[in-house]
C-alpha cells in the first residue's frame, strides 16, 4: 500500500492502539452527544430507518413492501426497540449465553477483519512459501493398467490364475489388450496419473501403497485390494513437485491470511490478558478440575442450554 507509510500501517494494526483510539472516540462522542442511547425513552423513526426496513424486505421478497407491510415492519421495529431497551434496563443481556457468545464473536471478527484487511505482500508470500514447501508440494502420482481377478469366482485358484496371467501379460508387454481379461469390476482398468490417495479411495490403502512402489514399464503382481487380486502394469510415475509461487499465489495468500488471523487473535488475547487477573478458586475438587482445564485461547461456557437441531 503505497499511500500509507509502513510504520503507520503497523501502528494501525497494533490492537492496543486500536483500543486506545476507540476509547478516545468514545470520549469525544459522549462529550458531544449526550445520552440518547438505550436509556432514553425517545424513539425516532427516520426516513433512513424506513428505507432500511423496506430494503430488507426487498432483499428477501425481491419486491418492495406495500403500505400495509411497511407499516407492520415499522410497528415491529418499534416493538423491537422497546423490548431491547427494556431488556437492557432489566439487565437481561448480562447473563445471556447467546449474547455473551455473540459479543465475543464480534470482538474476534474485528481482529479478523483487521488481520485480513491488507493483502499479503510479495515478501510475506515468498517467506511463507519458502518456509512451508510441504504444504504446497504435489503428491507423487502413478498411472497404471490393471486386470482384476475375483476370488469368489475362481474357487481357490485365484493366486494360480494371477500367476499365469502375469506370465502371459509379461510376454505381451505394454501393448497387451486387457479389455476382455479377468473378471468384471466397477473400477477403471486404466488409471491416469493418480496420487496415492486417489488410488486408495478406489482400491483401498494397502493396494495404493503397493502400486506406488512399482517400477514402470513391466507387469507386476498380483497385488491384493479390498476386492481381490490385480495384475498391474505401471505405465508412468510422476514425482511430487513444488509448483512455483506464481502458480500457487491465491492458495498461498489464503494460507498467509489464515495464519495471520490465528496469530493476531492470540496476540490480542495475550495483550488483553495483561489487564486481567484470572485465578481459580481453590476448593476440594478444585485441583482435579484445574488439571483438566485445557489450554484454549479463551474460556468456554460448559453448561449451556441445549438445542439439537
Amino acid at each position, binding site marked *: 500500500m503505497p499511500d500509507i507509510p509502513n510504520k503507520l500501517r503497523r501502528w494501525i494494526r497494533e490492537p492496543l492502539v486500536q483500543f486506545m483510539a476507540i476509547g478516545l472516540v468514545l470520549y469525544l462522542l459522549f462529550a458531544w452527544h449526550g445520552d440518547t442511547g438505550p436509556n432514553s425513552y425517545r424513539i425516532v423513526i427516520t426516513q433512513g430507518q424506513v428505507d*432500511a426496513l423496506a430494503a*430488507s424486505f426487498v432483499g428477501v421478497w425481491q419486491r418492495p413492501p406495500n403500505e400495509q407491510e411497511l407499516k407492520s415492519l415499522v410497528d415491529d421495529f418499534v416493538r423491537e426497540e422497546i423490548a431491547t431497551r427494556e431488556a437492557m434496563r432489566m439487565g437481561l443481556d448480562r447473563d445471556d449465553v447467546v449474547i455473551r457468545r455473540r459479543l465475543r464473536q464480534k470482538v474476534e471478527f474485528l481482529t479478523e477483519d483487521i488481520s485480513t484487511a491488507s493483502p499479503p505482500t510479495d515478501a510475506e508470500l515468498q517467506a511463507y512459501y519458502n518456509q512451508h514447501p510441504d504444504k504446497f508440494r504435489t503428491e507423487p502420482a502413478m498411472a497404471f493398467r490393471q486386470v482384476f481377478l475375483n476370488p469368489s469366482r475362481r474357487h481357490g485358484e485365484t493366486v494360480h490364475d494371477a500367476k499365469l496371467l502375469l506370465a502371459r501379460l509379461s510376454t505381451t508387454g505394454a501393448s497387451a489388450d486387457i479389455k476382455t481379461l479377468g473378471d468384471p469390476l466397477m473400477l477403471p482398468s486404466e488409471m491416469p496419473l493418480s496420487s496415492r490417495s486417489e488410488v486408495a479411495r478406489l482400491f483401498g490403502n494397502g493396494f495404493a501403497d503397493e502400486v506406488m512402489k512399482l517400477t514402470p514399464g513391466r507387469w507386476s503382481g498380483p497385488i491384493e485390494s479390498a*476386492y481381490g487380486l490385480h495384475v498391474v502394469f505401471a505405465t508412468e510415475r510422476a514425482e511430487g513437485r513444488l509448483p512455483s509461487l506464481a502458480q500457487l499465489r491465491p492458495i498461498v495468500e489464503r494460507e498467509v491470511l489464515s495464519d495471520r488471523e490465528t496469530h493476531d487473535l492470540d496476540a490480542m488475547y495475550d495483550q488483553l490478558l495483561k489487564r486481567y487477573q484470572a485465578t481459580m478458586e481453590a476448593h476440594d475438587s478444585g485441583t482435579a478440575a484445574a488439571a483438566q482445564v485445557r489450554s484454549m485461547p479463551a474460556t468456554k461456557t460448559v453448561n449451556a*442450554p*441445549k438445542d*439439537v437441531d
Partner: protein
Amino acid sequence: MNRLANSTLTSVLAVLLMATWSCNKPEQAPSTVGQAPAAPDAATRAADENVKCEGLGDFANCAVEKSTLAEYSPAVGQNFPNRVYWGDTHNHTSFSFDAGFGNPLGPEIAYRFARGEEVTSSQGLRAKLSRPLDFLVVSDHAEFIGMPDLLRANDPQLLKNETAARWAKMLHAGGEEATKAGIEAVLAIFKRNEVFKDPKVTRTIWEKVTSIATQYNDPGHFTAFNGFEWTSAPGPGNNLHRVVIFRDGAQRANQVLPFSAFDSENPEDLWKYLAGYERKTGGQILAIPHNGNLSNGMMFALADMSGNPLTRQYAENRARWEPLTEVTQTKGDSETHPYLSPDDEFANFERWDFGNMMNPVVPKQPDMLQHEYARSALKLGLKLEKQLGVNPYKFGMIGSTDTHNSLSTVDEDNFFGKMPTSEPSPERWKEVFLFKADKTPAAAAWQTQAAGLVAVWARENTREGIFDSMKRKEVYASTGPRITVRVFAGWDFNAGDLDRPDFAAEGYKRGVPMGGTLAKSAASGAAPTIMIRALRDPDGANLDRVQIIKGWLDAKAELHEKIYDVAVSGGRKIGSDGRCKTSVGSTVDIPNATYTNAIGAPLLSGWWKDPDFNPQERAFYYVRVIQIPTPRWTAYDQKRFGIKMPNYIPMTVTDRVYTSPVWYSPAQ
C-alpha cells in the same frame, strides 16, 4: 454510562473497521477478495455439457444422443458420470448461533477438516478424517446469520452515497485525512445508525460466508458450495428444516440474502424465494428437507400449512425445488419405521421417534409416521401423482451429518458427535438433548448416529458437476461407509449384461440410472429389469446383501411395498418369495470394538426382473445395500475410555446405503 458506551462502541468499531478496510483495499469489491484459482476450463466444460443436455430429460438420453455420433474413438460421447464423489451437505459452524453451541470454529475450519487437514476441535482435541471428503456445504442457520449486528456493518455497499464517496476519497488519501474521515463517519453512523440495521449486516456476514466458500472451492479437487439452512419449525417444534444449496459462485449468491424462518415458516414461501433467486440471477438453487422423523407428521403431509389439500401447483413447486431428501443423519434415520414396514427386519434402525423438537417434546402419535419417513412418502407421492397429475414427493435420497461442531465425521471409530459437547469424552454418551414432559430423557447423545454421507455420480468434482447430479437425483445416501453402488433400470437388460466391460455405457444407452423415470415400454408384456453392482467400502466392512425395495399403487388406489433380496453373500439362498431369511451373522467383538471380514462379500452384483409387474400401476424401485454388522461408535468409546455403558445402549450397527429410486408411471 456503561450501557451507553456499549451501544456507541459498536458503531465506533464498525467505522474503524471500515476505515482500515477501505484504506487497504480501495479498488477491490468484497466478493472478489481472495478469489480461488479457478480451473475455469473444468468448470466451463461442465457447464457446457449441461447446456447441451438441457431439455433432454434424463442424462441417459444425453449419453445416447452423443453415442450415436459416428466416431472412431469409443471414448467419444462417453460423458456419462464415471465416478462417485462423497460429501456432506449439512455442516454448521460458529456462524450458527443456536443457543449453547459453544463452537468457536468457523467455516474455514469446516472446509480444512473436510479437505483432510488436521484441526483442533472446539473442545481442544486433535481431529483428522481418515479420508477427505470431495465436497462440503456449510449450511449455517439463516436465522442467526441475520441477527442484528451493527459491528459488522462495514460493507462498502452502504457507502453508495455522496458522503460515503467523499469518505472513501479521504480514506484513500490516507494519513490524517483517513483518520478524519473515520471520525466523521463514526459521528454520522451514530446519528442514523439505523441505516446499518439487519439487511446490511446480514449482507456483510453472507458475503463473508460466500467469500470463504470461494477461497476453499478448488474445482477438480474439492468443492465448497454456497448454502444455508432455513430453520422452520411450526407447531412449534415440528421440524420442517431445509438446507438450501446454490450451484453458483459468490457473484450470484451475493445478489440475495439467506431466507429465514423469520421471513416465513411456510415452505411455499421458501420456494418463492428460490424461484426469485433463479429469476433474478439466472443461477440455480435447490432445497433439501431433513429429519422428517422429527416433524410430527408435517414433512410429507397431504395438506399445506393452512390445512388445504395439496394442489397441482404445490406438487409442481415441491418437485421442482426439492428433488432430494436427506434421509439419514446424526439425529436418526428416516428411511422407514417398523410400524410402517413390519416385514422389514432392517427397519428398526437408529430410530428417533419420540416426538418433535420441542423441549419437552410433543409426543409422536403412530398415524404421524406415514408422513415422516421416506419410503412411505415415496408411496404417498404415487397416490398424489394420480390425483394431481404431478408427484410432489418424487425425491432422491441422500445422507449428511448436520454436525454443529464444524467437523463432518461419520466413521464409527472416528466420530466427533453432533455438538461441541458431544466430542469424544468418557461422559459424552450421557448428555440429554431433549426431555419428555415427565422430565425423563427423550433424546440423549448415545442415540446419535455416526452418519451420513451423500454419494454423487458425476464426472467432475465441481459445483456444476455435483449440483447437476443432485438435481437429476443420480445420488444416494450412506449411513457412513463409502459403498459404491450403481443401478440401471430398463426393459430389456438380461443377466449377461451385468458382466459386460461396458456395463455403464450399456446401462445409460438402454435404461435409466438411479433417480430416473422409466418410459413406458413399447413391448407388451415387458417388465422392468434392473442391474445393480455394489462394491464395499475399500477400507471398510464386507456387504451382507443387495435389496430392491418396490412401492406401488394398485387399481383400488391402495399402496403397497415389498422387499426383494437380489444378491446375498456366502452362498445363502434367496427363496421363491424373493427373500433370504438367513442372517449374515456377526463377527463383532464388543469389548475390543473389532470385527473381521470373515463373513459377507466385498463385491455383490445382481440382475432382477419385476416378477409382479402391472403396467397400469404406478411404482418406484430403490436399492438398499446392507453392510455386515460392525462396532458402533459407542463400542469404540467404551473400549477407548475403559467405561461400561448400560445394557440398553446399542453396541453394533448395520450400516447401509439407500439409492435414489427409479420411477415408473403409466402416464409417462
